[in-house]
């Protein structure tokens, strides 16, 4: 018995034949355009846009059918081994028959199986009832990763080589255009994300170019300053962050930071005027971006409104000021009466005299505490004036040492000082620098029970004579400072654990004030210490420079 083709194959053949009969009627003439004209139109279409919409496929398919010596074009999609037509120049009935035909389906599914799915499967012979032999050319379109779209071209004869080349060209173009479109979309969504991030931050964000002109200005800054992005962009920072006393604040920050090329991150609290001339306190923090040669070419600044915070701080400071003042009147009275009592200690027993001395000491401590509290507030509010001028540090140091010699001797300590043999002129505020030295020597004596306190002046940099700076070192053989506590000793209200153990008094404000004073005078203080081995505080004073002289530090 002759082997019969499977039923499905038979019906495929009949469908194929039916289809061929109708081919010519289905391909509508398009304005009688030549094949070349159609090809140009196709190319033009592809340069404009590549989409995955049915409309797009319909246009591609229609024009393509007229660009080749083809009988019909079918564009279909394969997903999960299921074929579904997107467009065809076939009638819908024919299309349905083809799509449901197993043999054709397996042919159509062939694309991509070889792994080289970009290849055009050309010249596949559809064996209908032999003859005629018909050609199916399959062109996989790699235009989206999610679905596999193929163009099937049915033709009477195998396509010409030049037509195949054209198809290669078309598919390559579609691929490229599609990728460009995807990248564009990705870029758009990234831009959108950035813009959302920029404008919906809770903080203000500003970017400046190398001339310190605004290039980016987010919406929170509009709320803060009153300037809209449109108004702010292109202006220099001092117009949009106006500071009457110090308009060049950022330039100054930059100059300060450009000296140390490694330091790029800054933070500072400033009072500014808004567009409506209202006062606002802001905290600015940001970074300088540098080119490879180290020059700053961009600045990114994050701005927070700290007006409320400042207001609270001012109220706190005001409260401390008033409270301190109120405390001082009774303290003054107590001090006065205790001294009047001390005038005639003849009537008191030794024990009572001792009590009186204790009371006087305690009261003096209150006086110092109130003074320290006020100084901290004045430092914080920048109310202290520092007038830097050339000052010879030697006589000042000598004076402080002689002031403290009785106190050291009382504790059995040696207060050593050797006069240096080099010029000792520094840039400083003479009153403040004396306070600093006194405070440090006082501390050294306070926290030393045996041994000595050594004060020495030396050049800051022994190696180069160009460095005119001078350091003052105060070394003691006292109780020292815990390694853990060392980083915090210059903090406000930080009292050392050891200090609490000692019998000495203090509110923990001294070193905070000392450090603030030194920094305001362009200097620097460091400490080295080992518990029970003593501490060394080293102050490096600012050098005497022309610009340091007569400069007032607000």
């Amino acid at each position, binding site marked *: 018995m002759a082997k019969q083709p499977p039923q499905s194959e038979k019906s495929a053949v009949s469908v194929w034949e039916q289809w061929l009969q109708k081919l010519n009627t289905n391909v509508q003439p398009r304005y009688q355009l030549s094949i070349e004209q159609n090809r140009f139109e196709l190319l033009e279409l592809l340069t404009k846009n590549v989409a995955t919409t049915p409309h797009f496929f319909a246009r591609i398919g229609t024009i393509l059918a007229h660009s080749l010596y083809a009988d019909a074009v079918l564009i279909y999609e394969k997903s999960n081994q299921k074929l579904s037509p997107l467009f065809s120049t076939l009638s819908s009935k024919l299309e349905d028959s083809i799509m449901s035909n197993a043999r054709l389906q397996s042919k159509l599914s062939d694309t991509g199986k070889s792994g080289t799915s970009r290849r055009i499967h050309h010249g596949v012979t559809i064996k209908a009832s032999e003859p005629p032999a018909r050609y199916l050319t399959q062109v996989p379109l790699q235009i989206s990763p999610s679905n596999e779209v193929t163009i099937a071209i049915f033709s009477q004869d195998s396509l010409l080589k030049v037509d195949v080349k054209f198809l290669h060209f078309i598919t390559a173009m579609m691929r490229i255009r599609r990728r460009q479109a995807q990248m564009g979309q990705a870029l758009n969504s990234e831009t959108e994300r950035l813009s959302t991030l920029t404008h919906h931050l809770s903080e203000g964000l500003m970017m400046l170019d190398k001339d310190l002109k605004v290039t980016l200005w987010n919406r929170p800054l509009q709320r803060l300053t009153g300037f809209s992005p449109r108004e702010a962009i292109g202006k220099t920072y001092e117009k949009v962050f106006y500071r009457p006393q110090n308009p060049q604040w950022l330039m100054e920050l930059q100059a300060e930071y450009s000296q140390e090329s490694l330091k790029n991150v800054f933070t500072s609290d400033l009072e500014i005027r808004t567009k409506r001339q209202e006062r606002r306190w802001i905290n600015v923090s940001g970074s300088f971006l540098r080119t490879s040669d180290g020059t700053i070419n961009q600045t990114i600044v994050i701005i927070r409104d700290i007006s409320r915070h400042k207001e609270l701080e001012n109220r706190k400071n005001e409260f401390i*000021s008033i409270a301190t*003042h109120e405390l*001082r*009147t*009774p*303290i*003054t*009275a107590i*001090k*006065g*009466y*205790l*001294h*009047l009592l001390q*005038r005639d200690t003849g009537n008191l027993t030794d024990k009572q005299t001792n009590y009186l001395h204790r009371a006087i000491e305690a009261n003096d401590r209150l*006086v110092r505490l*109130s*003074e320290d509290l*006020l*100084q901290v507030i*004045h430092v914080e509010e920048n*109310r*202290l*004036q520092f007038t830097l001028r050339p000052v010879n540090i030697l006589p000042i140091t000598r004076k402080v040492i002689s002031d403290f010699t009785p106190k050291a001797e009382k504790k059995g300590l040696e207060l050593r000082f050797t006069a240096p043999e080099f010029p000792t002129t520094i840039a400083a505020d003479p*009153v*403040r620098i004396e*306070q600093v030295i006194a405070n440090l020597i006082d501390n050294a004596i306070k926290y030393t029970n045996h041994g000595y306190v050594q004060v020495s002046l030396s050049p800051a940099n022994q190696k180069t004579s160009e460095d005119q700076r001078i350091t003052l070192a105060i070394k003691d053989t006292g109780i020292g400072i815990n390694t853990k506590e060392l980083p915090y000793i210059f903090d406000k209200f930080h009292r050392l654990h050891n200090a609490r153990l000692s019998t000495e008094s203090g509110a923990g404000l001294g070193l905070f004030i000392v450090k603030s004073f030194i920094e305001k005078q362009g200097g620097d203080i460091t400490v080295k210490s080992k518990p029970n081995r003593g501490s060394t505080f080293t102050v490096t004073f600012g050098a005497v420079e022309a610009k340091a002289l007569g400069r007032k530090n607000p």
Partner: protein
Amino acid sequence: MKQKKVLLIEDEPLLIDLYTEAFEEEDFALMVAENGTEGLKKAADLPNLILLDILLPGLNGFEVLRRLKSNARTKDIPVIVLTNLGSEQTDKDKRLALSLGAVDYLVKSFHNPEEMAEIINKRLALDE
């Protein structure tokens, strides 16, 4: 020799009492005014020295100082400004006081009565 007069312009009773008692045995006579207006009136008696508190009810110390110095009769009386407001290092108040013509600026709580008396006597000795 005629006894020298020192005018204390101070509103705080605690301190008025303290200084009155503390200076009892001193050679100078202490007069007290409890506010600025009274102080200006008593300054017309031409004391040898005025101790002037800053934080006064009504006319404050700086205003009193300004008026004393702008009056031809009182402008040569030396004035020591006493304060418990602010710290010793608050240059602002100190500079203001000195620029208005005060001869000194003292934080009350820093000086016991003996030291105060010493400062007063030194100042009184200056214009002999």
